[in-house]
């Protein structure tokens, strides 16, 4: 263990360096790599021109869903939730349901903890994106991939 620990520092540095590089590359692009247009548009409607950074947000959702009709979802944002530094809003988007929006919530310093949960529908195997708006005007996001075996009955109208 000790031996690994000393070796680990350099390996950790390498890994951290790699992650920082990936993070930097992602900063200027959309929150998730291969998101269809409608979801991007829906996110843009919420964030406007502001950049969306990865981090601070945790999505708690099962990676394998048997029944897409009701899927438990929880979003937590890292924040001290004080008057000067708190989460103002949490939005959830999906890429393959008929509509890109899932839920938009408004909270404040009064919440004490920036965690919300709900149950939602998934029409297909897809990526979920959560975006949090902080009191300083910055936007943070996270994405999660979910595999759905039985999709919610959401055939399109046309």
């Amino acid at each position, binding site marked *: 263990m000790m031996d690994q620990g000393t070796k680990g520092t350099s390996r950790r540095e390498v890994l951290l360096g790699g992650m920082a590089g990936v993070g930097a590359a992602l900063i200027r692009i959309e929150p998730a790599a291969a998101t269809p247009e409608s979801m991007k548009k829906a996110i843009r409607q919420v964030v406007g021109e502001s950049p969306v950074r990865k981090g601070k947000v945790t999505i708690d959702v099962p990676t394998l869903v048997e029944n897409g*009709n*009701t*899927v438990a979802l929880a979003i937590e944002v890292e924040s001290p939730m004080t008057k000067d530094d708190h989460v103002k809003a949490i939005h959830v988007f*999906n890429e393959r*349901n*008929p*509509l890109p*929006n*899932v*839920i*938009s*919530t*408004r*909270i*404040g310093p*009064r*919440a*004490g*903890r*920036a*965690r*919300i*949960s*709900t*149950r*939602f*529908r998934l029409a297909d195997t897809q990526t979920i994106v959560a975006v949090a708006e902080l009191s300083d005007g910055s936007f943070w996001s996270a994405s999660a991939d979910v595999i759905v075996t039985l999709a919610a*009955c*959401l*055939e*399109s*109208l046309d």
Partner: protein
Amino acid sequence: MARALINVPQKATRGQVIEIKTLISHIMETGFRHDNVGKPIPRNIITGFVARYNGEEIFRADLFPAIAANPFVSFHTVATESGTIDFEWTGDNGFHETGSAKITVES
């Protein structure tokens, strides 16, 4: 008509962060489905949810068709004083439902 279940701790200490859970019975018809003769079924969902603690708004949510039937929403708040937490759901076809829960806060 609709029934709402609200879970708020009865007692809390001042400053404690409490979790509030709500569940309301509602079909949440997406508007993207057809009936057995192929006619589209019109959308009928809950679109809004607001919670107020002694009149002060503490949480607000916009719901979309992607929310599962019988919407469950939970969030947190700081227990500041004894009183009432009121909940309000609004939706399509003039849907409106309210509920409330009492909380006792000890210092």
